[in-house]
């Protein structure tokens, strides 16, 4: 196949990838979009085979490794519970990063195969592009591994900070630039390996100080990085499908990070520099005093809801942890049978990744037209009878609107307190991730339900 013809097919697969993302603008077109994505991928892979031409024994091995990876991927895709989606996505990011690093290594060791010059005499432009791809890929890999470990709970979600962290990171970033320069001027493989090692290290150091609840930003950011790594490799390989995809994924991740940061009213740098939560806690614990709360049980909750005409449900990460989404849907079904209007309110940063709560509710067969974003539903709280907060905390804290001293001041929050009564399902009175007390707990019209989210919803259903 001629180079021009294959370039055209790569362009077609790039266009199909754009259509794949375009399809996600509504749930109705999204499945078709995914199909476009798959077709685009099939075209890209087929064209690569055809353009290499000479069918050697190597093809057998290519299929073999493709099959191994493919079966592992398919197995994971079918087995993974929806609550574990953040971990899965973090894990997948790390693989993209590592694949980019491997392709860069391969191209560095055998540049002839990629038409980049000869070993020890690689074209300068290609070498720079290759280094960028490898560095970003390595950062994506080690950063995603840390994100994965934190989300999985293997590693503590608490931010890990130490003295001199920021100067150290700055030094390492500077050394990456120096090493890239040295690599390009000497073409020595030593610098290439050191560059990779340093990049793995910085990815690790960048994510370690970021706390568990900032994970939505981290995952989106790593999503973006994986795109830029792919684009870097795309430039090296002079492949337009890779360049287009890299740019799409890169900007997609960047937009998601922006949306997540806005949802927390924090700047991107504030999140990246990390340590949020660790520093605030010390201040908050000093002023802690015992304030009375109204403690309720499932019967009280059921009574309140039965007499309501509209209920708004506010799910949060706690619902995912307790796997309470199905129990919640059952409760809502019972409410609907009693002609009670039910809707769901989702804060942009609820959960551990963008859209996390929406997927869980969709899994539990909640129709997506009952699920609303913050701006859409916030005015409705004033007219609703009951707000049922399950596993959320900071995103409902009125201090974000009233207390300029509060660390979350200015963050957009759900106006839960405007409801006639608030039901708060929570395991204990412990403060949320931000380490601050929630005034909502002590309000006159708030009833605290201390229990596991799943058990509590099941009990309420029984009492309805």
């Amino acid at each position, binding site marked *: 196949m001629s180079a021009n013809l294959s370039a055209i097919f790569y362009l077609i697969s790039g266009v199909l990838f754009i259509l794949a993302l375009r399809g996600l603008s509504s749930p109705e077109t999204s499945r078709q979009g995914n199909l476009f994505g798959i077709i685009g991928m099939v075209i890209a892979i087929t064209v690569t085979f055809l353009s290499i031409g000479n069918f050697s024994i*190597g093809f057998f091995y290519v299929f073999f490794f493709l099959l191994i990876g493919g079966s592992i991927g398919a197995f994971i895709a079918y087995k993974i519970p929806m609550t574990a989606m953040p971990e899965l996505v973090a894990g997948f990011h790390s693989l993209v990063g590592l694949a980019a690093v491997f392709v860069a290594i*391969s191209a560095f060791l*055998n540049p002839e195969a990629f038409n980049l010059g000869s070993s020890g005499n690689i074209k300068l432009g290609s070498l720079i592009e290759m280094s960028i791809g490898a560095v970003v890929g390595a950062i994506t890999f080690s950063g995603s591994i840390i994100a994965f470990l934190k989300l999985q709970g293997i590693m503590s979600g608490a931010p890990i900070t130490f003295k001199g962290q920021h100067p150290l990171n700055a030094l390492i970033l500077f050394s990456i630039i120096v090493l890239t320069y040295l690599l390009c001027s000497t073409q020595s493989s030593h610098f290439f390996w050191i560059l990779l090692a340093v990049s793995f290290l910085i990815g690790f150091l960048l994510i370690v100080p970021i706390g568990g609840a900032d994970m939505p930003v981290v995952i989106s950011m790593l999503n973006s990085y994986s795109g830029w790594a792919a684009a870097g490799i795309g430039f090296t390989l002079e492949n337009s*499908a890779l360049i287009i995809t890299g740019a*799409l994924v890169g*900007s997609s991740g960047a937009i998601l990070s922006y949306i997540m940061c806005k949802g927390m009213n924090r700047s991107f740098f504030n999140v990246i520099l990390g340590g949020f939560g660790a520093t605030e806690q010390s201040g908050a614990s000093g002023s802690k005093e015992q304030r009375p709360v109204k403690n309720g049980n499932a019967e009280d909750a059921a009574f309140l809801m039965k007499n309501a005409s509209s209920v708004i449900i506010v799910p949060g990460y706690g619902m995912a942890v307790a796997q309470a989404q199905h129990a919640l849907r059952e409760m809502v079904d019972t409410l609907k049978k009693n002609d009670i209007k039910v809707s769901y309110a989702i804060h942009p940063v609820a959960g551990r*990744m963008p*859209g996390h709560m929406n997927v869980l509710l*969709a899994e539990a067969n909640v129709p997506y037209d009952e699920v609303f974003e913050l701006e859409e539903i916030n005015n409705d709280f004033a007219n609703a009878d009951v707000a049922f907060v399950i596993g959320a905390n900071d995103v409902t804290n009125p201090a974000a609107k009233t207390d300029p001293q509060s660390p979350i001041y200015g963050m957009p929050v759900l106006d839960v307190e405007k409801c006639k009564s608030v039901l708060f399902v929570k395991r204990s009175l412990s403060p949320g991730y931000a380490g601050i007390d929630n005034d909502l707990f002590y309000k006159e019209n708030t009833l605290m339900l201390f229990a596991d989210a799943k058990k509590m919803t099941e009990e309420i259903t029984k009492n309805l």
Partner: protein
Amino acid sequence: MEIDPFIFRLSIFILSIFIGYYVVWSVTPSLHTPLMSVTNAISSVIIVGAIIAGLAGNSESIFNTSSIFGFLAISLAAINIFGGFLVTQRMLQMYKKKKKVK
């Protein structure tokens, strides 16, 4: 004077960033998780480079250091391609319009 092909690739890159910007803003927030998993899958088109790398070994020795890295990259990217598209498909199936509960 001829224009360096790099400039053309850079143009594709920059324009694609803009396309990505507008397309992603139009994605409905409730589909942000599938968006992440599908971008994951499509960024694994990096498998194109991995295949070239894997087939770069000559006929006497299919496995040299360079091609081994290529083969490994093929497996990694394949996990992502299959895993990414399938898990997206699985999620999107759940967003089908449901019959209202009576």
